[in-house]
Each structure stands twice: as C-alpha cells, then as structure tokens.
C-alpha cells in the first residue's frame, strides 16, 4: 500500500489522525504530515478509512504489488 497527501489543500480537520494515528500526524500549523507512506498491513484499513474520511480529499491510498491487500 502506498499513501500520498496533498498538503496544499489540507483543511487541518484532524480526521486522518483520529482514524490512523500511526500513519498521519499534524504539524504545528495543523497541516497533515505523512508518518508512513508504506504502512504495514495492520494499518491498511485505518489508512483507507482516513482517505475517505478526509473532508478536504487530500489523501490518496493506492495498492502496490500483490501483497498489498
């Protein structure tokens, strides 16, 4: 799994951190910071939830390789 973010459009809502605190955090200005662009399988579900929960739609999660499920 590969996670990407677009910080320019981040609204600093904090939804991603609530859903997947091991994958995302916020800097002191509240902007999203990616902690792990290739999260381990036990974080995949949380990362996907963060993707759809983000009100600014700035998180993209894509599958990579066959072991990414």
């Amino acid at each position, binding site marked *: 799994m590969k996670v990407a973010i677009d910080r*320019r459009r981040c*609204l600093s*809502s904090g939804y991603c951190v*609530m859903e997947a605190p091991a994958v995302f955090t916020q800097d002191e200005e509240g902007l999203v910071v990616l902690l792990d662009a290739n999260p381990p399988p036990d974080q995949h579900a949380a990362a996907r939830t963060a993707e759809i*929960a983000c009100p600014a*739609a700035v998180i993209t999660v894509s599958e990579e390789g066959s072991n990414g499920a």
Partner: protein
Amino acid sequence: MSATLTKDVPVMHVDLYSEEMIADPWPTLRRIREAGPVVWNACGHWMSAQDRVCRYIFNHPEVLGAEPAITGFFGREAFIAIDDKAQHNALRNIWAIAFRRDTLQPLSSLIRQITSDLLDPLIERMRAGETVDIAADVCRLIPAFVISHMMGVADEMQPSVVEWSDAMAKANSGGFGDNYAATPEWQAGERAKAELAEFLSEQIRHRRDHPGEDLISQIVHAEVGRTLSEDEIIINTRQLLFAGNETTANWLAHICHILGQRPELRAELDGNRDLLPAALEEMLRWEPVVQVMPRNAVGRITLEGVEMEDGASFTMLLGGANRDPERYVDPEALDIHREPRASLAFGYGLHSCLGVTLARLEAVATTACLLDKMPAYQIAGPIGWTGFNLRGPSPLPIALA
C-alpha cells in the same frame, strides 16, 4: 469595550454592515489587510484580514475561542463552529460518516434531478421573456431539499424549513448594534428558532421508537446521543439544519452570478466538465459565503505583539484572508487554473466545515445541470445581497441573453 492600545496598533473605523460594505467589501478588506496583521476597529473589536493570522487563530482555540462568541443565538451546547472542548469531536463523529464522500456519492444524481425539476419551469418563464430570480427559485431551494432529505424531514415541510432557516440567518446578519435583541429581525429569528425546536422535538420523539437511517435518528441513537438531553439534541440538530442551508444556497448564487457575467468562463467549463471542482472552489475563495468568524480572547492574550484583554472580541475577515497576496498569486483575480490551495472558505482546523463534501457535491451537481439545461443568460437588473456575515447575491435577477 475599551482597549488600551499599544502605540503601533493600526486603528480603523469600519462599519462591516454598511450597505456599501455589503455590496462591495473588497476595497475595505484590502485596506484592513494592508493596515497590519491585527487592526483595532473603533466599532469595538479587533480584526484581521490576513490569511496567516486567521489560520493561526483557527488553530488555537485556547487563545481565541469560539465560545462564547457564537453561543448567544445557537445555544452553548451546539457543536458546529462553537464547542471547543472534548465533546466537540464526540458530537462531530456521530455525523462524520454521513458526511463522508462514499456515503454522500449516491446523493449526486438526486441533486441533479432536483436541480433539473427546478430549472425546467424557470427556463420556460425565461423563454417567455421573463426576468427571474434564480437565487430564490433555484439556489435557495436545493440545499433545503438536500438537508431535509438527509434529516428525514417530510417534503411538505421544506417551505417551513426554508422560512425558519432564513429568519435565523437574518437575525445573524449582524450590524444591529447593542440593542440587537429589540430588533424585529432578531425577534423573528427567535420565533423561528422556537418553532423549529418544537418541530424537531416531535421528530426526535418519533425517531426514538422508529429509528431510520437519517441524521436525526443517528444522533438520537448514538452512544453519545444517549447521554444528551433532548434540548442538547434539538440545539445540535437545529444548527445542522441551519448550517446545511444558508451557506450552500449562497455559494450556488455566487456561481450563477459569476457564470452570468462571464460567458467565456461558462463556455470553458461547458467544454471541460473536469474543470468544475477546481473552478467552483476558486469561485468560493474569491467570493466566500462566510465573511465573518467571531472569536473571544480566552484570558489576557498577546497576538502579533498586541495585548488583548480577557473576553476581547475578535473578528476574522475570511474574505480578506482569501485575497491575501502572501498566500495567493494575483489574489484579486478569479483564476480557475491557479495552483490549488485550501482557502479559508470552509474554515480551518477543529471547526473546519463538517459539510464541506456535501457542499462541494451540491455545487458540482447543480452547476453541471445548469450548464446542461440553461441557455445563455445574463444578469438582468440590480442585484441585492443577503448581508455581510453570510454573504451572497439575492435577489439575483437573470434573463436570457
């Protein structure tokens, strides 16, 4: 409230609610922004029209809080835009899933259908030579339909929903001075609030025994919902209905206004629908609906080197921030191809808009339908404005070009 001014603080005297300001706030917002990061308004409050300062304030509710700045009208248990404390997230989470992209997507075709049903008779009248008010006859009705639908409110109640919500918006349009509570607008707003509360109370009671998928059922039956009093549920549900109504209605009206003035832009969007999301977002940066966001100092604070006393009123001027050259290249220009950056139109941080995804969905679906059906049109007469706090063109008279 008096303020002991540090000697370098710029002072201006701006009536944010004058007719001139409401009709064209941009030159004044620019002067405020250029005067400094924090400006004392001799009307009795601090203000800022700079993006960086407003972003900082949104991010630091422990410095400048939303309570009690907004509580007066909506009630202090209301979580949208107000509650800065722990319960905010618990309350927001009740509806967070309902406002997610995946949940909302099915609404898109419904919104196009509603828009189409509203546009058909309007276009017929326009073809007959009539000048119509698209703000009242289309823009105003779409969000009322959508939020009523999501809350499980019966179709025949929608005219009342519009009426209550508009009366509440008028009461909050600002500029009434210290005796605001004596004005007819405020009293009509209070009446609307009471009627809506009574209606919601019936709805809530019904949902207790007949749970559905709607937003009212969701709060009534949520784990945190069970710890809430009926009053708290009413206050939050009422605010949700209000928030889902007035903001989007004005965004849609701004879009119709801009497209009516710029046929070349309309032609470009017509030719490439993929441009719509970014273009509508840029229109909202350029003409944001929420112009004013109030805050109060929490204790004695220092902001940008300026000392403010406990409880001091602070006004964030979001339209000014959205045209800040420190953040945007050529900020006074409407440029749908500019680098995408989040403006403050949906707020920022803890109180960033819960309904942002729904608002965007409504804007894109409605505009797509408008482009499909509406022949070339132009602005056909003097337009009015709803007010400054929640600003949009209304009435917006249009006629076929």
